[in-house]
């Protein structure tokens, strides 16, 4: 059945394959992505995960820099509020995220390309769904304008 879903998706998919960079915190979201693997939840191949210790580590310039280098989307994923391994790193990130969105918008990139999500170590299914959803959304938006600079083909 899973295979059918995949075949279905293959038919509808266009030429464009988005590339999404995910900054995942070591304790929750990276582990959640691990669980998606252990549970064999399939999702599109468009995501590349960079492991960080905490979402609090994500400097706003990381997001802007990643977009500038041509990523079609950026996902920041951390622990649920209250579950942070470092007590409040995810809250610090959440506060920052408001102006990250504004900054992204001001350089002419659709803010939907950047997402902040909470995924716990037990939410493998949620991670897979999120990647699927985000890939589809960005596929609709088309390639990032910056991507064309670095990768004209």
């Amino acid at each position: 059945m899973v295979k059918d879903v995949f075949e279905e998706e293959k038919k509808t998919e266009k030429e464009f394959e988005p590339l999404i960079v995910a900054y995942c915190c070591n304790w929750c979201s990276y582990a959640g992505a691990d669980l998606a693997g252990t549970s064999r939840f399939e999702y599109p191949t468009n995501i590349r995960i960079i492991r960080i210790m905490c979402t609090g580590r994500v400097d706003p310039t990381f997001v802007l820099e990643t977009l500038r280098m041509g990523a079609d989307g950026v996902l920041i994923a951390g622990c649920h509020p209250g579950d942070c391994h470092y007590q409040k790193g995810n809250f610090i990130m959440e506060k920052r995220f408001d102006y990250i969105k504004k900054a992204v918008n001001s350089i002419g990139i659709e803010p939907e390309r950047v997402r902040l999500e909470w995924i716990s170590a037990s939410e493998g299914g949620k991670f897979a769904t999120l990647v699927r959803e985000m890939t589809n959304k960005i596929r609709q938006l088309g390639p990032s304008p910056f991507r064309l600079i670095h990768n004209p083909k």
Partner: protein
Amino acid sequence: MSEEPRIGVFICHCGVNIGGVVNVPEVTEYAKTLPHVTYAEHSLYTCSEAGLTAIKKAIKEYNLNRVVVASCTPRTHEPLFRATCKEAGLNAYLFEMANIREHCSWVHPHEPEKATEKTKDIVRMAIAKAAMLEPQTEPEVEVKDASLVIGAGVAGMTAALSMANQGFKVYLIEKEKEPGGIARRLHKLYPTLADSSEVVDPLTNAVKSHKNIELMTLTTLKDVSGYVGNFNAVLTGSSGDKEINVGTIIVACGAVNYRPPQGLCQYKVYDRVITQEELEGVLYGGTLGKPERIVMIQCVGARKGEIRPSELEAFPKSDSAELLRKILKARKEEGWPYCSKICCMNAIKNAVLVKERSPKTDVVVLFGDLRVYKEYEDFYRKARDLEVRFVRRIEEAAPEITQTPEGKLQVMAYDALSGLEVKFLSDWVVLSTPLRPRKGEVMLARMLKIPIGTDGFLMEAHLKLRPVDTNVDGVFIAGTVSGPKDVPESIISGEAAAAKASILMGNRKVRTEAITAVVDEDLCIGCGLCEEICPYGAPKIENGKSKVREILCRGCGSCAAECPRRAITTRHFGDQQILAQAKALLIPESLKEVGV
């Protein structure tokens, strides 16, 4: 480091787990073409003895100064490969892992070509990070050979005794007058029906008389500072404040038996609606009498989650509308989603005790799910043999309790098998309520900097792999403070926490993770934002410059991201190390420029 990176790449097939999807030889050939890569190979199982030996051999033979292993998740295998690098004389922090199993082959089994391309990307990103890695030394600190145990329940006393018997000084504090915790208030323990005092009294006597244990009752923790090996704790009690210096801390301050608010299941509305804890009092106070029937209701205030509509479909149509209304009402009631796991056995224990005292009493247990495991199953059968009746009710519809003119209680619930109403006339209604986290725990957790989970209990460092550790080095948890446990489990966790603390105190020295924040003093303007944001109080402004006390720093990197001058970075997760991965992914030809 001026040395040119010489990276060895080791790609694992993991049997068919990776090799069955990803074209591993192709990825290996690709890796060989990348800048900085001196050597690349693939093997069936890199984590096997042969695989590890091959890594060590290659490090020597090719004079490698960085190692990348592309296999499974670093969350389980990084320590093994780091140790291997160390054995071959390479600093453990010059190792990087590429997760091509959990994050690739396992999630893309039907797209081998795309998965192979993704694997190449992941390997390239790991190579970029590896090229940027620098050797790190883990800071070493002395450990004071004394411990503070908070809470003198079964778990706390067990932990204290275990450490004291190994020769360590233990300060055991208890906020109540007498040690013993929840177990002291119980009369019998399941499944042996042994007196609770058989467990509690010997422990209490032992901790009171042990020469290495200083027991302080009516005492609480007021403040704590310091770090692993060297905590300064201020205790406050009836005789004023006392300051102690300890190397480790064990938190064993327990949980509380939940008392429902007035009105939930008619609790405190009718006198004869009581909790299991109160039933024990009634049983031993001799006020039970010879009741005709006792009805027990399980999961009061526990396991209140989402309703699964599919469960409603099986019910007779006429009842379902009424049932739905009741379910919606039940959802509004106070409750927590977790299973407290001890209430089922506790109810069965009390049912058996009632039957033993008064065999003619009809005992009915209304349950949603009954959780009895290992040898407890036999105890459940014993209750069945004694003719205790177990009736499965529809959990989402709260039972309705009313009083009849004759003074009896009528309990109405829905039978889960037939979907029909069932009514019981009863003398007593006993509510099985869950263990709840203490309210005071929040302050304690904040003081010790231990995170609290969504269910309100203290969070262990890893649910499966590190159940008694917290993410604060030198602080451990035991007993019900991290979730409901029965007496044997509390003893196990007490012993485990004591063993963990004793390792630190026995070694006298401890090395902590080298992933910490570093300040570039030339850039720092002393604004103090880092000091403000750090949950651990690691950075301090001294003489107009920020100084990070490594031993307090946990390496989350929030200060590094927040610093307006970019004067702070984290070791092993530096700005350039993180961005190099994104860059190698998005602009592959940039890899040759990367390097330290």
